[in-house]
């Protein structure tokens, strides 16, 4: 196992209200456990996640951003998640070009019944982020000179 470069990563999780947020609730009802590093932000649809939010999150110091929606073909709003799927490819590509590891950005399809998947994904993601250095854009990670 590689060393822990960032023992307490900060993660923003955008959860769609119909599937992934319900999966997170079900994880709670089932008393499953995962690290507390994730702050959830619920949106009606993963399609509501503007790509700029991902960069905003990174800019504001998130070590990782995860977008979770309904499985393809199961979107409550018919096709919202297909738009997300396309956008996320670009987001990752752009992140790489900006020098941000694309592992910091993750897209997952988690249906309302997949509490176990929700927990596994969150746990794995946080474990992975612990082994990456802190997000270089973290405000407190920057030296004064760079910041200003």
């Amino acid at each position, binding site marked *: 196992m590689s060393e822990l470069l960032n023992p307490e990563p*900060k993660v*923003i999780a955008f959860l769609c209200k*119909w599937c992934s947020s*319900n999966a*997170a*609730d*079900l*994880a*709670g*009802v089932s*008393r*499953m*456990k*995962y*690290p*507390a590093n994730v*702050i*959830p*932000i619920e*949106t*009606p*649809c993963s*399609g*509501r*996640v*503007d*790509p700029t*939010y991902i960069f*905003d*999150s990174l800019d*504001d*110091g*998130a070590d990782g951003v995860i977008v979770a929606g309904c499985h393809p073909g*199961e979107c*409550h*709003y*018919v*096709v*919202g998640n297909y*738009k997300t799927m396309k*956008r996320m490819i670009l987001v990752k590509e752009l992140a790489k070009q900006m020098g941000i590891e694309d592992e910091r950005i993750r897209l997952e399809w988690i249906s309302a019944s997949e509490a176990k998947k929700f*927990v596994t994904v969150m746990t794995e993601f946080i474990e992975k982020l612990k082994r990456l250095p802190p997000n270089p854009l973290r*405000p*407190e990670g920057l030296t004064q000179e760079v910041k200003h």
Partner: protein
Amino acid sequence: MSEKEPHESKRIGVFVCHCGKNIADTVDVEEVAKDALSLPGVVYSNHSHYLCSEPGQKELQDDIRFNRLDSVVCACCSPTLHEETFRKACEDVGINRYEVEIANIREKCSWVHTDRRKATDKALKIIETKVEKALLNEALVPVSVEVNRNVLVVGAGITGIQTAIDMADAGFHVYLVEKSPTIGGHMAQLSTTFPTLDCSQCILSPKMSEIAHKENIELLTNTELISVSGFVGNFHVELKKNPRYVTTDCNLCGDCDDICPVIIPNEFEGGLGPRKAIYLPFPQAVPSLFTLDTENCLGIHPLVCSKCRDVCEQKAINYDMEEEIVEKNVGAIIIATGYDLYDISKIPEYEFGADIDVIDGIQFERLLNGAGPTGGEVLRPSDHKKPETVVFVQCVGSRDPEHHMAYCSKICCTYTGKHALLLKDQEPDAEVYVFYIDIRAAGRGYEEFIQRAQEKGVIYVRGKPSKIFREGDKTIVWAANTLTGERLEVEADMVVLAPAMIPSFDTKVLSSITKCSLDEYGFFKEAHVKLRPVESLVQGLFVAGAALSPKDIPESIAQGSAAAAKAIGLLSKPQLFHDPLVATVNSEICSGCKVCQSLCPYGAISFDEERKISLVKEILCQGCGTCVSACPSRALSLRNLTNQQIEKMIQTALKAEAR
């Protein structure tokens, strides 16, 4: 930046719930409530043992009044549980329901974490994000819309028939759509029904004729649903009515049937009897008219064959009938499309299709039926002799997660018992075997019914046959009795398989038309398996009967009535309210690029050619926000979840703790 900072004027209250120990065990509720008081805009905070209880709500209301709050953040369980409770409680003391936010610190925090410090910090973070959102929330008023009091029922088997009758009895106008030329579904094919052995047709046909004669039921046979637009209370549907080529002048004389030169296997008889290309599906068919099957007809071009038209004295046959698109406006839609049987020719070891003495349950029903191809006498298909040894096999394609369907088809145990019992009644000396995995005959009188079959001398063997094959004029069944461990070989005259029930073949298409999701097997999925068994997640769309999962007749009828009751409840409201959490356009910023238009699956975005800007039709918008995230000039916004709100939430969530 011109961002508004309205929190100067907002008076937010934060209420943290202990939920007994559910939250308080891992989250320091008192500390969270104390820290929340320092958040921007928060003028009051409190904590309560059970915020949702009557005293909890009372205290909340008193606090709102006393502190003149205009916005509330409840830190408690999931919004799916008590958002409505708290919105209602706050509304009662003058707070707009859209100024109430739920911070879920139970399912998404206290229940999933163990470290008290971390959980407490996270709970506060979640509350902080909601407070940021609350600062920018607007008081909104739902738009009220009129309700169309017509209803569409798709599928006219026993479930759809029941729904249509119940709705019509309650005074609603029903469009009953059926894809095939007659209503009745699978129940019309059955001989008798378990456990009372009522003649199936005798209990079904009165209901069928009720459909034909009720004034406020408009029956559309040969018709398919092809599109649905609109929203609850105001759906617009398109129906494709395929031509029957026979008009209502038909008097059922049957001259056309007599003269038609085409003979093909009759699907109603499970292929065990013949029919013509122009035919009456079965004597009790509704509508009571002949129908022309163009797939098998020599051609509706009179030069090829026009025998039926020429012989018809009523002049009821019209080859020029064309497909029609019928448009209707309805307030609710009920899907009752039923089931099909699993294609058991996919199970090569049972030789269904290859050996004609291996038949399925529906075919056996037809053999037992007095109106069937053998006049109710069980004769084996290959030589029309009375079978001396008959083997019934249950769970064919059911309960087999590795190869076929994982679920139990629920009705097979009881109907196989019925088959065996009726056969024994007919042929007391016949040797009758039933191979089963388990007997699942739950239902009033069902278990006793199976016992009756056993007492009659039907031999029940626990085990699933491994191979069924033809040898001379016998069909050999290899199996093992799993209770005794012995191997068995039965030389049968006839084998009857009980295939799995699967979703009817066009369920998938219907799912994409109606946006009602499917489960892993392709059945429609209900909104909640226990609490909302006939509703779908699409408001105003209901599903009933075997379209949801395998069901017997009483359950299907109960669900048909349940769906009708739900639809009646919905359509009886004087008005419906549309959630105002929708997209809006800032006409000053919109550049008219139309990117948003292509993204909206509801056609809610139109274009104002004069002003060259996009417009959102509030009543059509479902509030997904997909367009908002794509607007290059940020002219679009989602009410109470604006870009500014989300950005603030992100910032707050990531802000380093002050402690």
